[in-house]
């Protein structure tokens, strides 16, 4: 990679580091794993920077790399056991707010691909089509997998929700 390209790459990853860490944390719910996923993502992006830098929606491309890195990690035997602490069913008085607890519980309960749908749709604010494209599934599958998350979010925020 040419020096100028490397500088361009460095500027990009520095700017995207924290947002991607936060997205990765929602997926894996572990900061150490989140940092690993971001490192894997940036490594892959480095190798493809020559083509990737001119992409129309580079952020979506990077999110796709991160999501697939996490799904791949989940397939590894040593990752199959969830390393995060169990989420309590009830919230102790003085603990985290009910809406936060509900979302945390939701993320803990759903399988990986459905969690990815929820994060991409409702945290990254991607469309159904964009989410389907990243995950390589149909738009119908995205809608059905997002339904439970949508209901939980509606309950948590007690606000009307638009599909």
């Amino acid at each position, binding site marked *: 990679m*040419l020096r100028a390209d490397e500088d361009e790459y460095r500027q990009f990853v520095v700017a995207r580091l924290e947002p991607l860490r936060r997205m990765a944390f929602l997926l894996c719910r572990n900061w150490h794993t989140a940092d690993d996923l971001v490192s894997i993502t940036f490594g892959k992006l480095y190798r493809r920077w020559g083509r990737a830098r001119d992409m129309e929606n580079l952020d979506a491309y990077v999110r796709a790399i991160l999501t697939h*890195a996490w799904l791949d990690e989940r397939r590894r035997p040593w990752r199959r056991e969830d390393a995060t602490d169990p989420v309590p069913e009830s919230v102790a008085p003085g603990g985290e707010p009910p809406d936060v607890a509900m979302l945390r519980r939701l993320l803990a309960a759903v399988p990986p691909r459905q969690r990815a749908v929820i994060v991409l749709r409702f945290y990254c604010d991607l469309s159904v089509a964009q989410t389907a494209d990243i995950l390589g599934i149909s738009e119908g599958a995205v809608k059905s997998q997002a339904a439970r998350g949508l209901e939980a979010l509606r309950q*948590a925020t007690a606000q009307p929700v638009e599909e």
Partner: protein
Amino acid sequence: MYHDLFERVIGDAPASTVDIEALVCGQRRAARRRIAGTVAAVVATTGLLTAGALTVGRPAPGGHTPLFGVPVASATAPGVSVTPPPTPGQTTYPPFVGPPVTEPSPAARQRLEAAMRHAVLAVAPGASFRTGNGASGFDMRHVDQPIAGTPPGNIPSFTYSGTTVVRVAGRQGNLTIMVARAGPFREGCAGVPGIATCEPVTGPRGETGFVMSQVLSVSDRPEAQYHLWLDRGAVDAGTVTVDLTVDAPAGGQPDPPLTADQLVHIAEDPALTLYP
């Protein structure tokens, strides 16, 4: 709409352990290992290749010899990364032998930018180029200072490269033309991982080289990347390299905008020289 709620679930993030500088250095090393391993394998088999080399006929520009006509026997399955070859131990490389370039770099850059566009249009008159790179369509880079100890695969001194996206009849690919001094250009392709096709080339002025297609890497998504490069060695003490990268659609085959013969003609264009 729910972004704030998600942010509250995330809470305060601890300090990141992602070291970007270490990551960049690691990727640089990995790239060097891949290139060095590839070149070492080529150097080791040059003798065998020279003995068995054959001359490829040169049809007229615009010919339609399939670029990827040979089935990709060694293509990696989707979802599997290509493992970098091991780093060679004591391999030595020939030095760059072309004389220093005396033409001022701004003039050379401008001249070669126009020459690259002309060379492509000469073989593909209907070609269009990526916009946004100036009038020529090529994104030009150059190195005009001597660099001591330049290893093969890295950008050597006095190198001018132009990159663009070329479109011909609805097909497109990433095209890079590099003009450099003569040096440790590749002399074959046996042993290079992922080779699908390889043909030696002899030009009308005694140029020699190889045109090949290669699988470089496969991402974690069902896609395949095909790569082709052509080296023309020892022409007026210079080397011209042409790379064409074509992405294959999911489940499909790459449909390159230029044929192998057209790439040969581009590389043989007399205007692509450091010594006009």
